[in-house]
């Protein structure tokens, strides 16, 4: 069963700027001991998440809200398995699609078709999967013959179309989004919105970090507010509940 269970999750970023990062301090500290050693050991750390606990079950649509720097993106990345919590536990069951940066893995010199594969591999898709989906991706993106031209000949809107078509071509149990994806000209944006809604409808859990309360209220069933890395509010919202 798809679920995300966080118990007292704490994530700290070490600030590894040059004095700490270089070996010199290590050598100096071990050679001289005393104060320098304490300096070198006492890394500056930023606490990005502190004592975060929640249980998210299948069917939930969760909006993560909070100021810049409140820990939304860190929480998304922790759920994606990028950041391992320093303390506490974070158990995720289900396959994950992280849509933070939808055009990551694209190579401007490669053709659109090659990029579909490159992007797909980064998402953990296989060649066979992508082979079945490439016609659908070509059709939905509306790129036509452009698909066999290098990506650098595309406009930025076309690149986003392609990326969007690839990332939404495979259903996953859990979808993580950092702001709702909006792409393209009005015509495409409408189609993309429909597709994204279908895509999200087909997923078991959606976690959406957003600044828009309106969007959260429209799409989500639960609202978790973060402030300075802590959960300050966790409530049910929306008409569906």
């Amino acid at each position, binding site marked *: 069963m798809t679920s995300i269970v966080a118990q007292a999750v704490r994530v700290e970023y070490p600030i590894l700027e040059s004095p700490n*990062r270089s070996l*010199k301090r290590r050598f100096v500290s071990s050679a001289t001991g005393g104060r320098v050693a304490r300096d070198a050991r006492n890394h500056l750390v930023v606490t990005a998440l502190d004592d975060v606990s929640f249980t998210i079950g299948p069917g939930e649509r969760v909006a993560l809200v909070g100021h810049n720097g409140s820990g939304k993106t860190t929480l998304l990345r922790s759920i994606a398995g990028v950041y391992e919590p320093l303390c506490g536990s974070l158990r995720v069951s289900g396959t*994950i699609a992280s849509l933070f940066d939808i055009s*990551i893995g694209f190579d401007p*010199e490669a053709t659109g078709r090659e990029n579909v594969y490159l992007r797909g*591999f980064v998402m953990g898709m296989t060649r066979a999967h992508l082979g079945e989906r490439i016609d659908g991706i070509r059709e939905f993106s509306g790129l036509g013959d452009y698909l066999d031209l290098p990506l650098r000949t595309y406009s930025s809107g076309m690149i986003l179309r392609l990326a969007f078509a690839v990332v939404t071509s495979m259903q996953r149990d859990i979808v993580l989004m950092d702001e709702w994806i909006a792409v393209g000209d009005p015509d495409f944006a409408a189609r993309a919105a429909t597709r994204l809604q279908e895509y999200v409808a087909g997923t078991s859990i959606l976690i959406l970090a957003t600044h828009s309360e309106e969007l959260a209220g429209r799409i989500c069933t639960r609202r978790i507010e973060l402030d300075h890395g802590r959960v300050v509010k966790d409530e049910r919202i929306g008409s569906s509940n």
Partner: protein
Amino acid sequence: MTPSHARRHSFAASLVNGTRDLCHGLAANELWLSMGWQDIRQRYRRTILGPWWLAISTGLLVLILGFLWSEIFQVEVRKFLPFFAIGYVLWTFLAGAVNEACTGFTQFEGIIKQRRLPLSALLYRIGVRHTVAFAHNAVVIALIVLWSDVTWSRMLLLAVPGLLLFAAVTFLALIPVAVVCTRFRDFPQIVSNVLQVAFFATPIMWRPDALRNYRWIADYNPLAHLLDIVRRPLLGEAPGWESWIWAVCLFVASFLAAAYLLGRYRHRVAYWL
């Protein structure tokens, strides 16, 4: 302050976790094979000769230096040139891959911060880039060995396991280099300096017997033995058993270093980027 080591990090547990990452990385071969190949294609896109430019520049360098040094050292060029060419091409593969492994995680920051994936796969991708380059350079070796008077024998077949072991050691060595270089940003400089010194301290441009009283420099140089298990069969000689032992020891050492560092620190790499 809560102690930061809530988890147990025993040596054995780290080895097991690291080995798992290495295996998952291998399983994701579609990712690193096609991406590594794509990287090479990108570098030579819109050129007519493509990656064959690599073979051409290697060939020119090997020919010019080979003739020059065989004059300076007063050795027969037909004997020296194949020795130098094989050593140089193998070294280019090893040193090129290790040097690039210094940025093995930093250059893929975007991917690492996007989703959880076996970190080893990213370094296999770098390994593939250099394997493709090596495959093109290998043509230079083939031509020079054909031209020289190396006698063909079944000994040549020994080069196959030799090359596999050589490549395995190189691929595994990329991992500890990448982990340490991501954490300590002075290390890439150290690595490139060490490699430069190692190039001169390893019998590539000179033969071990030219050292006379200092032969131990070659005898106790693990890299010399690693080169020998490929180079000697290609020159029609059997590598000494001690070379195989050295090479297997290097394999075990690089495997242990890779598995341990990956198991112990793979969760920290994203924080260090």
